[in-house]
């Protein structure tokens, strides 16, 4: 039986993702490890999500399909680049975000950004979709196709129950 991280990575790749930029989160630790070990994809770990948005723009402009795996807090760190680069040039980019600060969170400090992230995405006119069950891994992968059709960034918010097997 494949883990949710294995199924998610497989689905992202099947839909054409071949370049991954990751900033760590405890929830996505297995996914990031699988990406770093996968010889079929290119993996870069930047210091900050905004940098990752810049890298992903260059990746798409040179013919590859980027996915960023980040915490939702990274949307705040990269708001200007998402608006003035990704949206301005109408570049596809799938933002796979762990949704910290949502129900299931144990660290209170994560909650303010957990609440704010949807409003920030709305203000940036980035369509976003929430997933809270591991059975939805293949639907997240399908957003790789959607971001290319939409010609704009698209965000998936993956809650605690998404990462919990057998729920």
């Amino acid at each position, binding site marked *: 039986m494949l883990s949710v991280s294995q199924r998610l990575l497989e689905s992202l790749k099947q839909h054409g993702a071949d370049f991954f930029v990751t900033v760590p989160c405890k929830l996505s630790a297995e996914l990031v490890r699988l990406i770093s070990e996968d010889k079929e994809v290119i993996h*870069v770990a930047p210091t900050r999500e905004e940098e990752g*948005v810049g890298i992903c723009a260059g990746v*798409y402009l*040179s013919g590859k399909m980027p996915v960023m795996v980040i915490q939702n807090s990274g949307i705040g760190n990269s708001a200007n*680049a998402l608006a*003035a*680069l990704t949206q*301005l040039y109408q570049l596809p980019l799938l933002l796979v975000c762990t949704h910290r600060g949502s129900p299931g969170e144990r660290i209170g400090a994560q909650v303010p950004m957990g609440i704010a992230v949807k409003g920030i995405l709305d203000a940036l006119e980035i369509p976003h979709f929430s997933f809270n069950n591991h059975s939805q891994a293949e639907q997240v992968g399908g957003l790789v196709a959607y971001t290319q059709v939409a010609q704009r960034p698209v965000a998936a918010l993956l809650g605690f129950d998404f990462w919990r097997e057998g729920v």
Partner: protein
Amino acid sequence: MPVTRRFELLEKLVPLLQDELVVSNIGFPSQELYFLGDSKRHFYMLGSMGMASSIGLGMSLGTHRRVLVIDGDGSVLMNLGTLSTIANFGPANYILLIVDNGAYGSTGDQPTHTSGKTDLAAMARGAGVSSVIEAGLEDIASALEHARQNNGPHVIVIRVAPGSPALNPIPLSPVYIRDRFIRESKRL
């Protein structure tokens, strides 16, 4: 202090360009490059200050073509983590040219920290970039040729004087720049 500005440096650089894909920094640097010679190989970054070095890094990892980023001191200072990401993930075909005029040129030449105590070449070395080339304006041809002949990633730092000629904004739409560049980057 150098007396020659970025514009005079770019005047020397543009005729030297071969098949490189070029990313140019927001504001005056892009306007000057466009004025000196537009090309389908140019990606003019119109917004997102700080991102030029990162955009070029992504390109250099996505294609085998050589990528040259024309960046500035203020922009690199705004995205300093880029130096360590370049050091750890930057490929052989990546060249970051930092035109260091010690000023935020597009907003009125307010001084940056490189006018004070900060040394970007030393910071690049500290970040782990093994090929850091400090050159004068007269050395641009030899610095570029060195970067072409040797495996990167390379960071070239050239000090120039602040100041810019008055030029018009680039009359190309972002989507036009995008489509033209993608067609070119996929050519080889």
